[in-house]
């Protein structure tokens, strides 16, 4: 259907507003169809178009010269719908991207040509540049091909966004805005936003043709206000892989948001000191991620900047601490069926009963150090390099009831919510910021609230001080950087834990 045809349809449709809506449903179908075509098809589809074949041909051409070659296609697109007190918006979600990385290994070094295109001519030109510009070097390392595999994965979901008209999706956001509204004169702004992100990937090398259509729902609610000039706010979200079933807060989350908002005005600055603490799952997850996760990314071993390298097979934590990274968990924001170097996902046990048993690798670090690979080679986008990265990183469940941890806390803090953290793989220092700390005395909350709370310390000390691990489990979504760049979606979490840490 041409634009002119559609405009004529609009005119027949009546008023301009109604026309836009009616036409919109047609336009929407076309948009989604064209996006699916361009981005590599929607859920349930096999390999998108001829791209895998085109990439396989290029890989074969490159391997006539180089000992190893691969190709990775990555795209991201989506729709953002938001509502606040000033208006409502429907538009593309941020950071759409689409491109291909062609990679060759010359025996010692990787060389890559990354192009923001999928047109055969541009891909062939990129391959030609690699063939012309890169000499084959001395064979220092050898990349072993993985077993043959051809497979496509899609995100399981209850309510596929593609099947729900945009007007209905906007109505969902408007209903949510009414549902979460706070009847409180202190509220200055309230915003509800649902982003639906579609991620497509295709990996091709000599033995593998893998593809994945991933749908991520990011549902955020933010309230901000003042009480006698003192600011307060609350932020609650759901962020995971799935369908529109995730595009609403649970009743418990709504209640929690209202409580957080009301309490936030009374938050005091933290008095610096060392405290007995119970960490809620988002905070214990942050501890796992920042304390040991980054330090066991094996590219840091190659660069000799990871103290963990000296502790492989040794005790680094309390014997009740076990920690994993698992990109194969169903529905989690940090999950993927295969990594960006073609390795199919599986869990990796990092710490087992306090012993450091296995690091996380990318292809480079596993090849250079001659160790088995784990599925942790990840890149931010087609124009960024692959590194060893975490996915869903968490402490394993323990044996205590969560209530036992509180009851045991005679004078300490309950840390909730995470804001950010930063790694120190060489020094094994740690810094992360929890949203709030609640004072606990005699196993009960006193009502005192501190915000924000920065936790610092020495990794083995904090992990060795873990005295209780609860039997509950929760994952918190986040975005992880390598240093201050290279951002990838992750989750971190686990059970409540009790330890001792410096807070300020």
């Amino acid at each position: 259907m041409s634009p002119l045809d559609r405009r004529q349809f609009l005119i027949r449709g009546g008023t301009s507003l109604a026309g836009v809506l009616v036409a919109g449903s047609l336009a929407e179908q076309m948009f989604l169809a064209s996006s699916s075509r361009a981005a590599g098809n929607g859920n349930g589809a096999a390999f998108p178009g001829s791209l895998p074949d085109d990439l396989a041909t290029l890989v074969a051409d490159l391997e006539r010269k180089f000992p190893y070659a691969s190709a990775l296609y990555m795209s991201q697109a989506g729709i953002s719908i938001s509502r606040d007190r000033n208006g409502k918006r429907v538009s593309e979600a941020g950071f759409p991207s689409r491109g291909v990385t062609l990679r060759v290994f010359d025996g010692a070094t990787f060389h890559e040509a990354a192009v923001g295109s999928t047109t055969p001519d541009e891909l062939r030109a990129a391959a030609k540049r690699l063939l012309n510009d890169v000499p084959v070097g001395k064979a220092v390392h050898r990349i072993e091909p993985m077993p043959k595999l051809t497979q496509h994965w899609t995100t399981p979901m209850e309510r596929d966004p593609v099947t729900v008209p945009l007007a209905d999706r906007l109505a969902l956001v408007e209903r949510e805005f009414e549902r979460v509204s706070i009847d409180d004169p202190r509220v200055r702004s309230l915003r509800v936003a649902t982003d639906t992100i579609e991620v497509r990937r295709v990996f091709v090398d000599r033995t593998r043709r893998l593809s994945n259509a991933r749908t991520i729902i990011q549902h955020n609610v933010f309230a901000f206000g003042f009480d006698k000039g003192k600011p307060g706010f609350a932020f609650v979200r759901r962020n995971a892989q799935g369908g529109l079933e995730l595009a609403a807060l649970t009743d418990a989350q709504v209640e929690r948001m209202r409580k957080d908002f009301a309490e936030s005005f009374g938050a005091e600055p933290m008095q610096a000191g060392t405290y007995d603490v119970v960490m809620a799952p988002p905070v214990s997850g942050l501890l796992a991620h920042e304390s040991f996760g980054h330090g066991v990314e094996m590219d840091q071993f190659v660069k000799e900047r990871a103290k963990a390298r000296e502790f492989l097979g040794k005790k680094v934590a309390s014997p009740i601490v076990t920690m994993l990274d698992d990109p194969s968990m169903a529905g989690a924001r940090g999950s993927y069926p295969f990594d960006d170097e073609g390795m199919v996902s599986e869990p990796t046990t990092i710490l087992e009963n306090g012993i450091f048993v296995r690091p996380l690798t990318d292809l480079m670090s596993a090849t250079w150090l001659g160790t088995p690979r784990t599925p942790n080679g990840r890149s931010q986008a087609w124009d960024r390099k692959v590194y060893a990265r975490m996915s869903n990183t968490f402490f394993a469940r323990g044996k205590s009831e969560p209530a036992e941890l509180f009851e045991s806390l005679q004078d300490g803090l309950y840390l909730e919510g995470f804001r950010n953290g930063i790694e120190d793989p060489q020094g094994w220092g740690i810094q992360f910021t929890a949203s709030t700390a609640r004072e606990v005395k005699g196993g009960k909350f006193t009502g005192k609230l501190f915000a924000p709370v920065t936790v610092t310390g020495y990794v083995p000390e904090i992990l060795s001080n873990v005295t209780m691990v609860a039997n509950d489990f929760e994952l918190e979504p986040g975005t992880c950087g390598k240093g201050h760049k290279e951002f990838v979606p992750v989750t971190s979490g686990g059970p409540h834990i009790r330890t001792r840490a410096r807070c300020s």
Partner: protein
Amino acid sequence: MSTRDPQVAALRAALTGDKRIRGWQIQRVRRAGFQTYLVRTEPESERRTEGVTTEATVFVENGDKLGRAGVTLFAGDGAAVADKVEAAVFMAGLGGDQPWSLPAASPVPAVATFDPALSGDRARATARELAAAWRTEAVAHAGVRPSSMELFCGEDTVSLENSAGFAGEWRGTRVSLLTLLLADGEKPSERYSWEERRRVSDLDVRRIVARAAEEARDLTRAVVPPSGQYPVVIDAAEIAALLNPIQVHSSGDSLYQKSSRFELGKPLPIEAKGGEPFSLATNAALPYGLQSYAFDGTGIGGRRVEIVKDGVFTNAWVGKQQADYLKVAATGAFSNWELPAGKTPLADLTGGDGPVLYVRNFSWLTPDQARGNFGSEVRVGYLYEKGARKPIKGGTVSGNVFAALGTAKWSKETVFLGEYSGPAAVRLEGLTVAGG
């Protein structure tokens, strides 16, 4: 604006001829770059990147509101132009904010943002020269050895046009260097440095590596600072992060959303306690500033905007949409930080008999934007006491940005750090140091 680009021409034709559309904007960004990765001094990887994205934004009347939606086209999407425009019109028709107008035709200011050494085929040659210089410097310091290096050389070409008659194009380059050095000693240590500039001549590889080497060596004998309340001097490298709450509360968006603690024409909520008056500007026309631009994402020309003068909030930085709502002139997006030189020589900031903690870098300084509270671990610092200087790592510094600024003494000496031009350091009283 490149009228020769067929995708842009097709978009323009589709948007101009569509009577449902009240306004539109097309932004095209072409990016190209060369990335180099070394492990120790050996190449790990080299990458060449290139891509073009074209974003079309349409505005559609929806009752008394103005709906807006954007769509992105990539290389090879020429056949999808009509569908993309239809999708944008439909999405824009679903929503709406208070109406506002796009920037009209205006001259594009000349802002220095481009270095030919980082453009086109020269980027690879420049990258190889810089990598060679880094290799030489990284092995030249006793007691220190290289861990790894990452180097990004690249350019952006941004074209923008809209239905109100604005059309312009500007080019910017960027060179980014990540340095990681290791030092052996009592406590094996590392030093991380991330430096970015718009032109090669502003990236002093020798100075960057020398400073990282000195700090890596010092960290092998670093201790945690003593606990207490005593003066803390914060290096220029952390000042922009420290002042982030000022940036947030001085935005037109915060004023419009009524989430700002500031009122135009009134003093900031800073209680003067012997500090020097605080002034701040954001300068998009700063030559070779990392955040400099000829025009922002909606076509507002790059300029210097005074935000705070002697403690008084004089102007919000504000995009065109919020400027129309607030009935003020649009200034464009926040860009480079520009602070005036202070009154105190740098050497005097760390002077006196009592302890003074000089923080070169925090692990990650992220103040609470609403309240201004902060607490961060010291990644590299020095304790000055009775004429002696001791390296510091660990411990935390905490306080409140608004309270601390009332005590601030700024250095006379100034530095340019890419997106920050201002005093080399600031001394703050009343912060809490938690250490040994």
